[in-house]
């Protein structure tokens, strides 16, 4: 199967899964931004995306994307490490042309996955998971908060430690996408002498928009808690 056996095939899978994840983040970020404008509307969306079949299918789809992206990334990184040969250069200089992100995509990815587990515990586990268990007849006691996303957002970012953790996470995502977005377009072959610079620029803009959408939510609710004097260290 050429998608697994050829280098460009593997890159194609990285690229498609990566881009799909970017689209998801754009949707997710926009949705979260609504929480700033109107917590009620945000909760309405949460309600819509509870444990319904379409939300569950999408969740499984996302999990598949992440697993594919991560598996291929691991294989790619390992193969590339071996391709370098056993003996390493004793002196090697970095260049301005080679971005920090492009050299550390895997490390950034591992950081992203790590925080993602935390994030799933913070929200998914308390919301969709609770609903799923409830629907299957399990007992979680009071489930009235399961679609109250705004409540959980407030609660989490009232804790300044979580604000900082999430900002670090978003920083890693920003770096990852700074290289990832343009790289995926290049992998798909969408570049030429005119578009080369534009695609790099588009990549940076998309990365920044995605990350700013999330950052605004963290900063808004973090600042709100500090100003109202309601900071609380709830884990």
């Amino acid at each position, binding site marked *: 199967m*050429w998608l697994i*056996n*050829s*280098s*460009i*095939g*593997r*890159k*194609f899978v990285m690229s498609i899964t990566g881009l799909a994840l970017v689209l998801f983040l754009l949707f997710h970020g926009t949705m979260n931004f609504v929480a700033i404008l109107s917590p009620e509307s945000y909760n309405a969306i949460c309600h819509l995306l509870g444990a319904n079949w379409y939300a569950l299918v999408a969740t499984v789809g996302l999990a598949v994307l992440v697993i594919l992206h991560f598996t291929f990334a691991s294989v*790619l990184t390992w*193969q*590339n490490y*071996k*391709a*370098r*040969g*056993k*003996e*390493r*250069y*004793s*002196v*090697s*200089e970095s*260049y301005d*042309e*080679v*971005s920090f992100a*492009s*050299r550390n*995509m895997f490390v950034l990815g591992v950081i992203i996955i790590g925080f993602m587990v935390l994030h799933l515990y913070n929200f998914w586990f308390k919301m969709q998971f609770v609903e799923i268990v409830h629907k299957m007849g399990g007992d979680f006691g009071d489930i009235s908060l399961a679609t109250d996303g705004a409540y959980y957002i407030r609660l989490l970012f009232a804790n300044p430690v979580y604000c900082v953790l999430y900002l670090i996470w978003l920083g890693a995502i920003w770096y990852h996408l700074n*290289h990832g977005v*343009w*790289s995926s377009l*290049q*992998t*798909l*072959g*969408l*570049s*030429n*002498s005119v578009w*080369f610079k534009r695609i790099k620029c588009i990549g940076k803009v998309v990365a920044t928009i995605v990350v700013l959408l999330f950052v605004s939510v963290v900063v808004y609710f973090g600042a709100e808690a500090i100003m109202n004097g309601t900071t609380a260290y709830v884990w």
Partner: protein
Amino acid sequence: MEKSINIKVKVWRQAGPKVKGMFETYELNNISTDASFLEMIDILNEQLVKEHKEPVAFDHDCREGICGMCSLYINGHPHGPDQEVTTCQLHMRKFHDGQVITIEPWRSRAFPIIKDLMVDRNAYDKIIQAGGYVSVNTGGIPDANAIPIPKPKADEAMDAASCIGCGACAAACKNGSAMLFVAAKVSQLALLPQGQVERAARAKAMVAKMDELGFGNCTNTGACAAECPKSVSLIHIARLNREYLGAKFKD
């Protein structure tokens, strides 16, 4: 203005492919700044011969930047610190008095060391043999202007064709990827009418060969293009991706 400098060179010495190598440091005095880098190594070798020591093995041929034989990873850069030149076009004026210059061979799994600074770059030849050509039936000499080619395409094909197959791209790449080289070769022929017949087969065969030989997966870091002595651009990698994906999806 001619000037002389005294330098130290730290050279990778390795007696054969399977032997363990190590760095040796040599002092060189009164090296003219007008000397080329390879002339400096010639001087070093004369010195070594006089001392009854084994001279340093290194690759070179044309010494004018067109054959692609010279290599060397000099102070952390393939073909040295200068831009857009091969090692044979590099001059000692780029170095200063008292400097320690570290000289290493290309390091990539697909380029095994033969001796000292010499590596086996047959892998690139094998990739070319897999499809980097056009088959033509011999016959009368065709008229040069019989096949019109738009200027922008001809220019881009020429830019790709300027690749001399030196291997600096794979040597510079943290992934040990040969994509810039393969892209240059595929691109050059994909742009010209003569290359159309074997276009899809070429992209598939050359990429398959590249993978088989153990080169890495390109992650578009761009170190290759930054170090390429002929400034082959990353846009050719995009074209190679296009050619390859197009050919595979047609199957």
